[in-house]
């Protein structure tokens, strides 16, 4: 009898904790659309895959909106058979010294034809307009959705509308009640990841005109929404991983510094654009003004040794056929006056400009970030929109933090937040972003949206 009594109690008298209230506040989440770049698309590990799409921050937001009246949220998902989408990189292992080895994932891609740069078409209506690579500067470019444009925008653009601009595509959405807008990163990032060697920071005038046109389009029918600022691109592992290692090695070797190329590809004066980078100016936790790109990790260990590895790798990339590699290499060495018999970092064999952000380039990046963010915030304030200050958030976590017994930081791989490309978050990182956005939306619109359990989203996958 006691057992029976206990059995009844067991099922009927579980402890309960009252659930927090949930409400939409003054916002309306009936139809949510997301405008943005790779971050909005769910890009991770240097590619866009079905897994990345499913775990994109807009998908997480939409899932939480559903609890308080949000509708379905359509994304241009890759099919299960083409789940690896654009392809991406995976962690294959570690070298004997503990450096990560990555490998490309090349099966189950969503390429329209073998070796095509185009992706399988998706012309159903979408709520997620995230286009990897898009800049604010690109939103008024006719043909950006054509085969000669951005393959991710081309993918969701019907062939008949190949000349439609991204802004026009967004303007077609007239019945959304809520939106997120996170653009601007690529207006700086392309320049930064190329070490200032290629690409350019968008002109402020272009940025402001295009950005406000997008905000106007999204708010034309009175929709509420959230905009996000541009994080300090120099706080991501892509720029913070190699530099401190180089600085430590040079300091240990009592080296005063090394010589690097500076400036862009089109403005190389072979004798003048070489500058001594003092060891002390390399940025690490203690400060500094010179950043190394993650793409430089393969060459960083070669500083002080005679090598032409970087130029050989570049020649292989640029060469139309394997037979022509040596010819291309000779052309490169001649054009940039490189003597590969000299040590890397010597005046005759300088560290390549594409692998370093020097103090001048860094200042240009930081100035533009501030200018763009000031404009973004002013636009949001003028339209009474919520703001996710991604710049402030990522700056605040530079020292790391802990959540539910897991340590997080912007460190490459071990920090759990950034994926293998060193720029885009892991699904876990995107979940943190979605939660921060939810907190901003709650604060702005007096809503009571619930955040998600970030531990249900993966970090870097180890083999």
């Amino acid at each position, binding site marked *: 009898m*006691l057992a029976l009594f*206990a059995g009844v109690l067991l099922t009927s008298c579980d402890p309960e904790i009252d659930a927090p209230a949930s409400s939409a506040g003054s916002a309306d989440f009936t139809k949510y659309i997301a405008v943005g770049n790779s971050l909005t698309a769910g890009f991770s590990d240097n590619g866009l895959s079905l897994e990345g799409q499913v775990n994109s921050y807009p998908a997480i937001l939409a899932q939480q909106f559903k609890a308080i009246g949000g509708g379905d949220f359509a994304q241009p998902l890759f099919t299960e058979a083409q789940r690896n989408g654009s392809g991406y990189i995976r962690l294959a292992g570690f070298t004997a010294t503990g450096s990560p080895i990555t490998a490309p994932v090349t099966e189950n891609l969503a390429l329209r034809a073998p070796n095509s740069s185009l992706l399988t078409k998706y012309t159903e209506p979408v709520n997620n307009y995230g286009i990897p690579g898009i800049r604010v500067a690109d939103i008024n470019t006719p043909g950006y959705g054509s085969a000669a444009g951005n393959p991710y925008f081309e993918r969701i653009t019907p062939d008949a509308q190949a000349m439609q601009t991204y802004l026009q595509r967004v303007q077609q959405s007239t019945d959304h009640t809520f939106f997120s807008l996170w653009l601007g990163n690529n207006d700086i990032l392309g320049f930064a990841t190329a070490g200032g060697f290629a690409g350019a920071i968008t002109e402020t005038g272009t940025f402001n005109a295009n950005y406000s046109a997008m905000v106007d389009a999204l708010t034309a029918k009175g929709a509420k929404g959230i905009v996000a600022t541009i994080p300090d691109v120099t706080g991501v592992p892509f720029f913070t991983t190699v530099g401190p290692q180089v600085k430590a090695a040079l300091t240990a070797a009592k080296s005063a510094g090394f010589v690097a190329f500076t400036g862009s590809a089109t403005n190389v004066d072979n004798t003048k654009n070489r500058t001594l980078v003092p060891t002390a100016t390399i940025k690490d936790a203690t400060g500094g003004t010179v950043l190394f790109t993650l793409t430089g990790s393969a060459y960083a260990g070669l500083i002080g040794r005679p090598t032409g590895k970087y130029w050989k790798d570049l020649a292989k990339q640029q060469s139309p056929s394997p037979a022509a590699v040596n010819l291309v290499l000779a052309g490169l060495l001649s054009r940039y006056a490189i003597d590969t018999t000299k040590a890397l970092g010597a005046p005759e064999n300088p560290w390549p400009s594409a692998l370093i952000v020097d103090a001048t380039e860094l200042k240009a990046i930081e100035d533009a970030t501030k200018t763009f963010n000031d404009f973004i915030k002013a636009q949001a304030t003028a339209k009474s929109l919520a703001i996710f200050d991604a710049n402030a958030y990522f700056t605040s976590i530079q020292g790391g933090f802990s959540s539910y017994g897991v340590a997080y930081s912007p460190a490459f791989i071990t920090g759990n937040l950034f994926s293998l490309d060193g720029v885009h978050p892991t699904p876990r990182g995107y979940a943190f972003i979605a939660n921060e956005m939810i907190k901003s939306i709650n604060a702005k619109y007096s809503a009571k949206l619930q955040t998600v359990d970030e531990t249900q989203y993966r970090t870097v996958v*180890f083999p």
Partner: protein
Amino acid sequence: MKSKILALLLGGTLLSGSAMAGGYQVNLASQRQIGMGHTGTGIVTGNASIFFNPGAMSQVRENGVTIGATGLISKIAYRAPEPSGTEAMSDNPLGTPFNFYGTYKADDLLTVGLGVYTPFGSSVNWGSDWNGRFGLNELTLQAIFIQPTVSYQLTEKLGFGVGFVYAIGGVNLQRSIPLQGQEEGRVELDGGASGIGINAGIFFKPSEKISVGLSYRSKVDMKVEEGDTEFNAPASVAGRFPAGTTFDAELPLPSTVSIGVGIMPTEKLTIAIDVSRVGWSAYEKLRFDYSANVNGASFTENARNYDDAYIFRIGGEYKLTEALNLRAGAYYDNTPVEDGYLTPETPDANALGLSAGIGYTLSEKLSIDASFLYINKEERTDLSNKSGGIAGTYKSVAYAPGIGLNYKF
């Protein structure tokens, strides 16, 4: 060093219960006394005085044996800090704390006895999916006290007793490791433990209507030496978790000082009141020392910094007929866990216990006790930022039906 002794002794199923008293103490030492709010320091509790107050054991008039067991059904609800919508519910295995007491009157004044009981333990299972899994999946703590005891009647009114405690037990702790492979990493620590202590008491009964008692159960340091580890980590980082690593750990089972008073206003009614102070401040940290570096560290340590805590108890027994006794009781158990130190293995809070019981005499030699205890811990929200715990709100309830048999000879 798996706890094979326990498995042999108890068939592997009858293990100690969930920690439903403060900390990981389990106050379920006698079915009669559970019915009376687990009082018993200031009254003669029969053979169970071996546990409650060895000084009162010499007052027991006949040789006898008591055996009993309790089914401890507990659940803990969890909610992550707002505005998270995340929640979890622990699926704790049924705890089965048990007791055995035997007393033998060597002569008119001297009584000897043996107690075997389970005053500490915990089994909490959150599973490997909840958001706090990197803090804890599952914890099982077991401790069985074996206590040979002597009690001597100094005068007709005054008794003194002391027992030597040998404790055996073990710990099994499982948690997830935040390393993502094909599946998430996991670690299991498993070790047997043992320790020693004493249990002493004085019992004074100046009149038929009143009695008082004082008891002291010492701290027992349970030491795990060369416990087993089992790591499950992705192959590329498996080298950071060497196979065959053993661990040492020490867990204090705290002292308890109790004073109790018994009031017998009529022949039919007994009222008992106890106050206990549990020396939880002995539990300063939970530390595991490894025989090899695990993920780059030779040990892990988390602060606990428990406070000493008081328990207040009251209980009564009414003799309805010659054969039938009715009992009821209540207690209030203050948590030893300070703010900031809440952990998912012991998400403790101030607790209210309400109990009822019956005793029935079947024959001159045989009687039976049945008890039921309901424990309700206050809902508690904590940042858990000082203990490496999992922040959030916890709420525990437990139900403990028990049954015991007494045989006199």
